[in-house]
């Protein structure tokens, strides 16, 4: 557990260093994710030793959003004056994104299938 935690934090730290040092707009932990993927590709047995701890962490991912979510009390002004427009943007944008994703997925899948059968 401790080794996994150390590895996760280490990847995040290198990610933060790279993101700040190179002035990238990508969050440090996302670069850390890429670094861990690279480490797994180089040493596949690593996966089974990481699994127990990462599964516990990911199973409780929702809990970790709560502190930021409570920050809503600092944004009540924005939310109370703009809530209808915000809800409209969120709903339209989410449905639009699902439609485009599903259409692209099915279209490319059919195209690949046709190409393979020719």
């Amino acid at each position, binding site marked *: 557990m401790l080794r996994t*935690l150390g590895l*996760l*934090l280490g*990847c*995040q730290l290198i*990610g933060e260093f790279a993101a700040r040092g190179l002035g990238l*707009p*990508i*969050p*440090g*932990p*996302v670069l*850390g*994710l890429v*670094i*861990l*993927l690279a480490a*797994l*590709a180089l040493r596949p047995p690593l*996966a089974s030793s990481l*699994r127990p701890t*990462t599964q516990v*962490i*990911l199973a409780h*991912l*929702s*809990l*970790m*959003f*709560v*502190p*930021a*979510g*409570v*920050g*809503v*009390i*600092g*944004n009540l002004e*924005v*939310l109370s004056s*703009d809530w209808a*427009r*915000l809800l409209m*943007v*969120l709903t*339209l*944008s*989410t449905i639009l*994104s*699902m*439609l485009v*994703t*599903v259409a*692209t*997925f*099915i279209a*490319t*899948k059919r195209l*690949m299938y046709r190409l393979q059968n020719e």
Partner: protein
Amino acid sequence: MNDFVSLWSYLSATPLLWLTATIGAYLIAEGLAARLGNPPWANPVLLSVLLLSPVLVLTKTDYGTYFEGAQFIHFLLGPATVALALPLWDNRATIQKSVIPILCALIAGSTVAAGSAILLAQFFDLPFSVLLSLAPKSTTAPVALGISEAVGGIPTLTAVLVILTGIIGAITVTPLMNILSITDWQARGFAVGVAAHGIGTARAFKVNPIAGAYAGIAMALNALLTSLIVPILLKWLT
């Protein structure tokens, strides 16, 4: 009464109180959601926020004081984001099998998710800081908060918008796909994963295991892509 006041002022100044309150509220919220049969609208994060916020307002506790305790949980978002590498790695065979549809749908869906939020925010005349906070709304919360901070948005507002997006996606996906009579579980799952991250993924797993796996892949890949494209889209569209 005076004893209580002094005890309260002691407790409310230590991180212990709000750390415990956060975990306690989450456990209550989770139990409540389970009792209701875990419908998408009864999201444990949203319920926790609804439980904790009135307590903070009523006890006149400012967010800074609350966060001193809650930061220990908040901090774990970083390592948790890194940990998303493992499910992605475990699914590499599935990804390789349909790599072209996955990549094309990811790029199209992710661009529309962030781009349409930016354009609609302008259309509805929302303040610029709100627009910046909206842009990463379809990606998983730890990444969205990082993006929001990096582009100059309000991370705490982003957190709420991300959760709402997840709930909207989880509620609308099944009726939407049924109306369009789309029966491809891979495509259905992938769509809700791109648009509505972890909350959508949890919903997809409940409907169909294949949809769930593809939603999880979509969520993890979208976390990577959104952080690349949001800064570019903001430059182009605003």
